[in-house]
Each structure stands twice: as C-alpha cells, then as structure tokens.
C-alpha cells in the first residue's frame, strides 16, 4: 500500500531559523507510522520541537545523525507514504540571501574607546562663510569671528579685502582679477608646503588614445581610482596619515578664477557615461567659479590631464595631504604616444612601488 517516497526534512520553524540540532529519532527503519506520530525531535536556539509524520506509511531509511546540526531542508528520514505528500525540492532556496543574518550571541570584545585628539584649532564658520572663503582662497584661520560662540559669519568673510566686492554686486573684470590673484597665491602657498617633501617623478609613454577630453579624463580618473583602490597603502591623507574609506581623485581644471581642483569621490564606482557627465558638469560649474562644496576636499591624489593641449608633459607636483600626483601630456605628433608622469611622496611609497603603480596604470589604460 505504501507507494510514495517522502523525505522528512529539518524544518524551518521560525522566521530566522537556518539550522537545527537533531536531538533524537523516535522510530526505526521498517516501523509503520500514522499521520501525526512523532518521528524526531529538533532543537534550535529558540525552540524545541517535535516533528510529526505528515501521513500514514512506513519508515524506509534514516539519514540524519542524532546529535548533529543540520541545515534547514536537509532530509532526516525517508518515509514510504500511502498518500502523496506535498514536497518540493528545488535545491536553491528562494529566500536565504534576503533573510537577515542573525548575529550569534557570542561574547563580544568591546575595544577601548579610541581617544580622538581634538584638532588644534577648530574653526567654526557658517556653511555659507565656508563656501565663500573656499572659493576666494581665504584661510578661515586668519579671520576674526564676530558671530555668537566665536563663529565666523558670512559677513566676516565678506569683509575680507578680497571678498568685499563679491556676491550681490555685479562682478567687474577687476573682481575676477582679484580672485584670480588670490587663487594663484593660495596654490603657490600650498605647493610651498609640499616642496620639502621627499618625492620622485617617474615617466612612461602610453599609446592609449581617447576621442574627447571628457571621455579621456573620465577613463583616466576611473582607471587611476581603481589602481589606488587596489593599492590601499597610497590612499592616505598625509595630513593625519589616515587611510581613506573612499577614493578621492582631484582633477585639475580651468575655472573663472584660475585653476580649480574638484574632488571626484569613488569615480571608479560610477558608470562610464555618468562619470563623463559628472566631469563635464563640474567643468561647467568650475568655469563659472562655482565648485560644489562637497567636492572641495577629500583627495589623496590629483590628475593634471593636458592630453588635449599641445603640451607634451608637465611634472606633477604633490598637493598638500596628497600622496601621489599624475599628469598626462599630449600625444606625440609622429609616434602618437603620450607621456605619463607620476610623482609620489617617498614617505608613503618608494620608487619601485611607484614604477609598479605606473605600469599598472598604463596596462589598464
């Protein structure tokens, strides 16, 4: 009479159960069982449960080992049943990858709280004051705050020499010139700071070609970001030697007030066309003198892409807090290859590693 083979499995008994312990089996091979008879006992961290026979039949085989922990869905014993029991074995569970992982209740070592030193001179400034100071190249530390709690106000920044003509007043040529001068001074001051750092510049020729400036820059930025991601030891801000959790690549571009260096965060995770668009939009904003505030900091490297000019090469210089700097020159008129230069801070990356980085980049390009 018993004609249907049915595997009684380790059942899922709660929303979070993934496995269970087989405590004991109450039947033997050859036993006749009735629907509702208890076949075996199961324990999970939450609940103990008796598993019943779903139908009348005979025990054909015992598969599970008493005392063992079995995954949900694993067969414990095989029955020959009188009536067909609903059973679906699709192997691949439909849900597990969606189910939330349950943290096992093991002892957790709570680390001593890390003492984070307070920055020596925290500058408090209103958001707009920061934005304006940044775009004018004003060092906020040089400003006397007049706002409550010693906060630098928008007015404090506007009062500065360079800034007093800005904002609501229409910008005359002389205002632009003043800002350019301020910007130049800022860049020069910054490079002054990095001049004493031990550094080396390596160059190689690359035969990669690109259709447009945007396409080329996007390709370069995302490839270089990927190389940095694979070489996390150079993704360091030299300011406090912290390794960044993201990849920030500064791309040097022209702005209304001279050169600007907007920072592209995790550009390698942005799909190609999006990145091109992102770079293009940023160029438009920069040319109007407006770099989005969230793109003003966070880089550990910079790229000087002059491949669409006539300049063959430029020695890249390390910007403060950056570990590496890259430049790409125009393709040579006759043999078509571009010169790529890489400058590294030798305190964080030696010359051999630098050569490897450059090789990786050119291979990837």
């Amino acid at each position, binding site marked *: 009479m018993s004609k249907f083979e049915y595997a009684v499995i380790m059942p899922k008994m709660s929303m979070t159960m993934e496995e269970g312990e087989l405590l004991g089996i109450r039947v033997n091979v050859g036993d006749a069982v009735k629907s509702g008879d208890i076949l075996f006992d199961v324990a999970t961290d939450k609940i103990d449960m008796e598993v019943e026979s779903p139908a009348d039949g005979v025990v054909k085989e015992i598969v599970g080992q008493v005392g063992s922990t079995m995954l949900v869905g694993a067969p414990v014993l095989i029955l020959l049943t009188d009536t067909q029991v609903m059973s679906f074995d699709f192997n691949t569970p439909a849900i597990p990858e969606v189910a939330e992982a349950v943290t096992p209740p093991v002892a957790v070592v709570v680390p001593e709280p890390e003492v984070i030193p307070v920055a020596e001179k925290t500058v408090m400034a209103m*958001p707009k004051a920061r934005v304006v100071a940044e775009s004018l190249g004003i060092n906020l530390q040089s400003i006397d705050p007049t*706002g409550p709690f010693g906060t630098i106000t928008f*007015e404090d920044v506007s009062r500065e020499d360079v800034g007093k003509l800005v904002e609501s007043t229409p910008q005359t040529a002389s205002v632009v010139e003043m800002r350019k001068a301020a910007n130049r001074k800022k860049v020069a001051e910054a490079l002054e700071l990095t001049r004493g750092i031990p550094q080396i510049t390596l160059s190689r020729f690359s035969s990669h070609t690109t259709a447009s400036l945007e396409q080329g820059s996007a390709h370069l930025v995302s490839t270089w970001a990927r190389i940095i991601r694979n070489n996390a030891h150079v993704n360091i801000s030299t300011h406090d030697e912290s390794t960044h959790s993201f990849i920030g690549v500064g791309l040097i571009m022209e702005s209304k007030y001279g050169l600007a260096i907007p920072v592209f965060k995790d550009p390698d995770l942005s799909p190609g066309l999006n990145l091109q668009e992102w770079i293009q939009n940023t160029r438009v904003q920069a040319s109007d003198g407006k770099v989005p505030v969230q793109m003003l900091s966070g880089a550990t490297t910079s790229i000087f892409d002059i491949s669409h000019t006539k300049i063959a090469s430029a020695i890249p210089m390390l910007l403060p807090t950056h570990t590496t700097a890259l430049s790409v020159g125009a393709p040579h008129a006759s043999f078509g290859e571009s010169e790529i230069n890489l400058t590294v801070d030798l305190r964080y990356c030696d010359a051999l590693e630098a050569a490897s980085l450059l090789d990786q980049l050119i291979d990837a390009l």
Partner: protein
Amino acid sequence: MTDRMLTMSEALREAMSIAMEERPEVFILGEDIGIYGGAFGVTGDLYHRFGSERIRDTPISELGIVGAAVGAALSGMRPIVEIQFSDFTAQAMDQIVNQAAKIHFMVGGGLHVPLVLRAAGGSGTGAAAQHSQSLEGWFANVPGLKVVIPSSPYEAKGLLLSSIDDPNPVIFLEHKLLYKIPGREPVPEGAYRIPLGVSRVLREGKDLTVVATGIMVSRAMSAAEELDKDGVTLTIIDPRTISPLDMDPVYASLEKTGRLMVVQEAPEHGGFLNEVIARVATGPSLGHLIAPVSRLAGMNIPIPYAPQLEKAAVPQIPDIVKAAREVVANWR
C-alpha cells in the same frame, strides 16, 4: 470676481457641497454631523440639503466609522469622515494606519482608498489636553497617507476639493481657531482646486525664510507685517500639504535669505517641521545658510487648560517677531 470673505467653516461646507453635487459617490459620515450640524458647525445645513443617507450621523464609534469609510471607499464610494476632535483619531488608528494607508500597497495596487478624514485640532479654546493636540506628525510618518493642513478659508476650500478628488486616503487637519474667523483673502464662488503637494509662497522678503503650517501661517504673516516696520523682511512659505512635501520654494528662498525659521503648533520634539530642517541640512541649500536654523514650536507638554498657560504653550505672534529679530541681528 468676488470679494467674498468666508470663515473656514463656511469654505469647507461649500467645498463639500460642491463635491456632493458633482459626484453621487461622495458622502459624509461622523458624529453629530446631521441635524446638529457638526460639533463646530462645519456640516451646518447640509443634512437638510442632502438628506440622512449622505449626511450620515453615526454612533460614537470612531474605529467603526473610519473602518466603514475604508470599506465603502474600497467599494466605489468617496466618503468624507468627520472626526470631532483630531485627538479621537487615536480610537481609530488601526483603520487609519494599518488599513487605509496600506491596502493599496499590500494588495499590489489592485485596490485603493479614496477617503478624506477631516479632523479638528489645535489649541486656544480651553479644551485642554485631550481635545487640543496637533497630531500631523503621527500621520506624516505613515507612508500611504496624504496630510493636508489648510491655513485659511481660501486654502481650505481648494485643498478639500482636491483631497476629495484624490484616489488615496487624505488626512485633513483643521485648526479650531480658524473655523470662525474670516480669512485674509476672498474665497471665490464655485469650484476651484489647489493641487496637493505644492507649497505656497505668501510673501517674499530678503532676511528670513519662514516655513509655517496651519494657524501659524497667519501668525507668521502678522509677525512679518510688524517686522516690516524695522526694515526686516520675511518670506513666508505654507507647505499646505506636509505629505507630500514640496521643498523647492524653500530651497529657492534660502538662496536669497540664507536664514530659515520653522513655526508649528505641535510639540517641538519629533515635530513634523523638523523634517524641513533635515531636508535643508541634507539638501542643496546648506551652503546658503548664514545663520543657524531657528525653530518655534509648541512646548513639549500636553496642552494645558488655563488661558495664560495655554497661550504660553504654543508660539504666539510676539514670539515669532522676537525670534526673527534675534536671528537676523545676530547672524549676518
């Protein structure tokens, strides 16, 4: 054109009357809305005009009547439920939150609940702690509900007509003090609709952007007129609907003023307008701020009874004037 000045009760009644004439499936149910004319007189004479089937008096049974409205809305009707005091929605919360708000989503779009729940809220009438709350934050935190807060008779009529048209459940929260006073602007005759999800800029100024809801809109307007005399000018924005919330005019205004103030009657802690502040803090206008955000809201207490206590518990016109003056003077 008309220069009719109506009270909010009259404007709401007119909207419901128009909707009932336009659509046979619109009906109203609630406690004492029939011959009594509604606890605040909003339904007025509608019972005599539309009869007891469509102006349906109910027992005191908030959960039952909201549930019945949900079922009727699912089955082709467009019920308007009147809850006498918004505080009593607590009695009906399962039907509002677990049923009306979620049915469309839960069944995968095959059913929808075109229901308007009107409820009177707000303090100022001495009704004390269980009859005076501003509960918009509860509802705004439930996906699937639209939440409308009319600030004047003109707004009330146009917003209520749009709410009745909407295929989704709409919570329509009316401030009791607005029922009886004429608004600042005329209410056109006939049907007009104000779309849900479009903020209104009531006036533009250079110094401070004020986002206010419900009765605080007219208080902010009065404060702005006072401040005009000092040469401090305010932009006043009424979101009208807090779900959905239209922030664009706020962002645009902050580019000009650089200063934000939010004013609500509901308690400050967990209040809805904190969402406006959060969106500014995380959105495109942060870099325009030249001042910290100011927040005027009800105290974190139940609404008290005695008139002087009740007034002190929620922002009044002088509070707005003072806070606006300070933020403009201190942050430049």
